[in-house]
């Protein structure tokens, strides 16, 4: 009897193998969607099926949250790219030969991320995450324009260094666990490690966490390790930008959090909280200021992703049931909203034939529906009701103020700075006299609407089951 988590991992890889063999674009797209749907189904099945703690795989409330988001956004993105890539081929930005490659890579990437998520072995987790990273590197370079290649190159270098550091951290964890758990696989099994955390050597744990923070933090996009992120988002195909912001950052964050739980298990070790708070705030405020100088719409939202990752890391750094709950919620909301925004941006780029703010004006005159959708998405990410991001930011700020009144000023400051920039760009794009061409948009708007509806629903009503589930995950985080 095959278990859901195996499906979550195997389905994408199998699909990847099949897709490599399929030349036609349309069939490939359909298959891609179907495979993603299957994965999503498996992910949802995980929600209901009881948890697993095996030698190599683990499924608990904590990573189910991530798996479901992952498979869900993966599915919608596949849906979106099915129509989007078609347009790219027509306009000739993408040679048809690449599409087969693109679909296979997409599935492989999804599979690798799921591997990292279900892995109970920190080595396997590392492998999955790095595999996913390297695949996205290739995807970013897909258009083979000099810009794309340089973005991919930058991404490649920084990611590789991150990979090495993260691996060293993993080795250190093994070393720390070895005395308690003995040599071999047990000392790399996360569940066992966490159980034995109290007996581990605090000094090694400190060392390990630092290397893991820098290593995986590079992929989370924390400043000052963020450099690859904006260009990778701006130059890759839009579906990949959506996946990067919506998923890869989350998976890296997931790994980081697993290790935070581990280190937190050893009271003698350095408290990861303050470190995460500092890095989170730095990323949040830095990214907020960077928003003002952006002229490329995708790079703009990439920085906004850095900003929100900073906020999430800050929340987890604060810790405690409320802050962790808020952090998880914000993470989920950000994935949905930000990938939705990138869908909308894809539409806009197709409608105006450019990614430059200077050439995108007066959308509400030329493309009213698109303008409304985009406006709603930006409003959502700006943390305004009735969307779910408001809920999480409400919780984060209130609980921070209740615990550390003066500390709370910093995230609020960052968010306000970012808000100003978001609003400025929003008004600039949808209002005023339209300029430039106004093409028909033929990418499907279903994914965008779906995401918006989900975020809206979350802002108004979170099902109690979902809430309880988030709460248990928050408790696991301690």
């Amino acid at each position, binding site marked *: 009897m095959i278990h859901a988590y195996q499906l979550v991992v195997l389905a994408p890889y199998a699909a990847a193998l099949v897709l490599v063999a399929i030349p036609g674009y349309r069939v490939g797209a359909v298959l891609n969607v179907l495979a993603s749907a299957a994965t999503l189904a498996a992910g949802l099945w995980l929600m209901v099926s009881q948890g697993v703690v095996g030698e190599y795989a683990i499924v608990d409330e904590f990573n189910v949250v991530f798996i479901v988001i992952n498979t869900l956004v993966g599915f919608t993105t596949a849906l979106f790219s099915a129509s989007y890539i078609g347009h790219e081929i027509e306009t000739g930005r993408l040679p048809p030969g690449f599409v087969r490659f693109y679909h296979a890579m997409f599935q492989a990437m999804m599979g690798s991320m799921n591997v990292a998520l279900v892995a109970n072995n920190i080595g396997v987790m590392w492998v999955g995450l790095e595999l996913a990273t390297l695949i996205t590197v290739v995807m970013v370079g897909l258009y083979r324009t000099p810009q794309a290649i340089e973005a991919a190159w*930058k991404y490649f*270098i*920084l990611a590789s*260094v*991150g990979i090495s*550091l993260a691996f060293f951290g993993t080795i250190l964890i093994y070393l720390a666990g070895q005395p308690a758990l003995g040599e071999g696989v047990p000392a790399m099994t996360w569940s066992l490690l966490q159980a034995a955390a109290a007996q581990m050597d605090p*000094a090694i744990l*400190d*060392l390990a966490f*630092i290397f893991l*923070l*820098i290593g995986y933090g*590079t992929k989370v996009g924390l400043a*000052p*390790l963020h*450099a*690859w992120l*904006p260009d990778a988002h701006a130059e890759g195909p839009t579906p990949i930008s959506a996946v990067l912001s919506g998923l890869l950052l989350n998976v890296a964050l997931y790994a980081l959090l697993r290790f935070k739980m581990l280190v937190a298990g050893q009271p003698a070790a*350095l408290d990861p909280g303050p470190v995460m708070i500092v890095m989170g705030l730095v990323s949040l405020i*830095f990214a907020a*200021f*960077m*928003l*003002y*100088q952006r002229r490329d719409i995708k790079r703009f939202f990439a920085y906004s992703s850095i900003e929100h990752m900073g906020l999430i890391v800050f929340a987890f750094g604060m810790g*405690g049931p*409320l802050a962790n709950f808020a952090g998880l919620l914000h993470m989920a909301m950000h994935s949905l909203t930000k990938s939705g925004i990138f869908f909308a941006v894809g539409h806009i780029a197709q409608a105006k034939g450019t990614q430059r703010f200077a050439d995108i004006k007066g959308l509400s005159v030329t493309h009213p529906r698109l303008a409304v959708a985009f406006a709603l998405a930006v409003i959502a990410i700006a943390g*305004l*009701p*009735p969307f779910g991001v*408001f*809920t999480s930011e*409400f*919780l984060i*700020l*209130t*609980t*921070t*103020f*209740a*615990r550390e*009144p003066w500390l*709370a000023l910093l995230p*609020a400051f960052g*968010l*306000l*700075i970012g*808000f*100003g920039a978001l*609003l*400025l760009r929003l*008004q600039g794009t949808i*209002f*005023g006299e339209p300029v430039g061409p106004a093409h028909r948009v033929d990418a499907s708007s279903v994914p965008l609407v779906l995401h918006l509806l989900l975020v809206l629903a979350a802002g*108004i*009503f979170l099902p*109690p089951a979902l*809430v309880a589930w*988030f*709460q248990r995950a928050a408790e696991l985080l301690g």
Partner: protein
Amino acid sequence: MPELSASGAALGALAAAAVFATLVRGAALALVYPLCAVAALVLGAVDLRVLLTGTELTQQLPIGLPTIGLHLRLDPLSAFFGIVVNGGILAASVYGMGFDRAKELTRRVEPLFPLFAAAMNLVLLADDAYAFLFSWELMSLASWALVVARHADPESRRAAHLYLVMAAIGTAALLFAFGGLAGPAGGYAFDTMRGHPPQPMVAALVLAAALIGCGSKGGLVPLHAWLPLAHPAAPSHVSALMSGVMTKVAIYGFVRIAFDLLGPPAWWWALPPIILGALTAVLGLLYAVLDRDLKRVLAYSTIENVGVIFVALGLALAFRANGEHEAAAVAMAAALLHALNHSWFKSLLFLGAGAVLHATGRRDLDGLGGLIHRMPRTAAFFLVGALAASALPPLNGFVSEWLLFQAVIAAPALPQAALHFASPAIGAMLALAAALAAACFVRVYGTAFLGRPRSAEAAQAHDVPLAQQIAMGGLAFLCILGGLLGSVLATALAPVLADLVGGGLPRAGSGPTVFSLVAFDPARSVYDAPVIALFVAIASLTTLVVVHRLSARRTRRGPAWDCGFPDPSPATQYTASSFAQPLRRVYGTAAFAARETVVMPPPGDSQPARFSVVLVDHVWRALYAAPGRAVLGLSERLNALQFLTIRRYLVLMFAALVILLAIAAVTT
């Protein structure tokens, strides 16, 4: 409970109207405003019932914030403000019915108007922090979209941007306030907060946050700068809502936090609202009296009234902290009544301004004039509003001012020296504000409606459709009625006052007549509007009769005398700017470093002399322009980090790593 379900139905109707207006187009849209009007009527009726019976309705729904759900509560306080809000909405909706759908822009207004209305009602119903801020932000968002409805105009875009950013700052402050009230445990329901008032230190922070949060929405100096830009930018009936009603929702927020949730006050809590409020009152009118844009003048006068209300609230806090419940009741009654009265006359004035804008297409006072001949009804209604806004008896504006002065006069009885020194200063500033208000509205009315038309548009003006006249007429009637029956309104406040300050005004009939408004006790201060009005009426009628008996009834129309050399051109009239000149000379130099420069042509040269005035808005310079520049400058600096070489990025990474390692090395 039927009332709440009625309100719920009405809110649902508003939501439905919003959705309807987004989906359909064409003639069917004409249904939106009537729907809003009906909904406002229902909501207002429920509020009225709750206020009069002094009951309290509560409801919990399993939506909203996870784990605590949505708490709704309609107590006398929110019911009172509900009456304020829905009165304004009703008037604005009726006014909206008069719009010519062919000409005016409606596609960007009609979907949002009901949303705005619903959000404001929801703020009042909310009984937990999440619901409150949720609807609060929704309110800002809807009004933002309405402000930017004329999106092609860059000015309104800038106004909208500033507005929503300031709103966000205010919301952040309120988040802090509620965070402090809820505590680390996260007791976000208002009942939980009432149960556990915070520590003094936290309470002080909460109060400051609440003052910033609600002040920025209400236009408290120095957080006011967005208001005179945003309110006028919206369509006039929306301006009426924003200025007349939304500012009251801000007041409600402050009252709810400071008087209900925050527990027993310390006396010094009173100082910030009193001082800021008095500054706001005077400064707001100084802005108003020097401005030349009709709608902006009204917006500035809104700032002044908000300041007055905050002064009253501060006094109420002071009295309550000292256990003087009657005095607290007087101050609180002044605040609440002024909120109500202001919502009436300010909505009226903005609707009137809208009528003028509609008739002439102009907002600049110096381009108007003589409208009293062209649009007599609007002129009459506007006159009522203007006199009410200048706090002149027997209109409603004066009732609340009178109560407020009574409260100020009672302030020296307080034990704290700081409040002693404050009381005369506050009294003087309020009196100055009242006098300036009179000057301001004489100026507005005199230049816009009296005299001779200064532009072709003004000369061609025509009165507005019936619906809009009805809206204005109704409000004007309310202004007069509220002026005469202020005491009745004051007695209706009894449950609210009892809840908030544990005291009340002397019960009705304790005065010489049923309608006499009494502060403290009849021997101390009484204001009896009906009697005075009666006297004035009798006196003027007798005068009329007598004079017409005695005098030659002959009347001749002739050219204006004007000291013997009348000039036919309307340009020779006093304009708004020339009217402001004495006030500018007296106050402007101090407040705005006003400088006048006159360039005289050399003798024998026939070219005209040039006169120009420079005003400096210090608040804007220091608190808005400077930070804006700072943010942009800093972002430009940081932007260098976007253009580093990969090696430099690696250096950053390496530095981060080494620093963390070093920290780990030194910490034991």
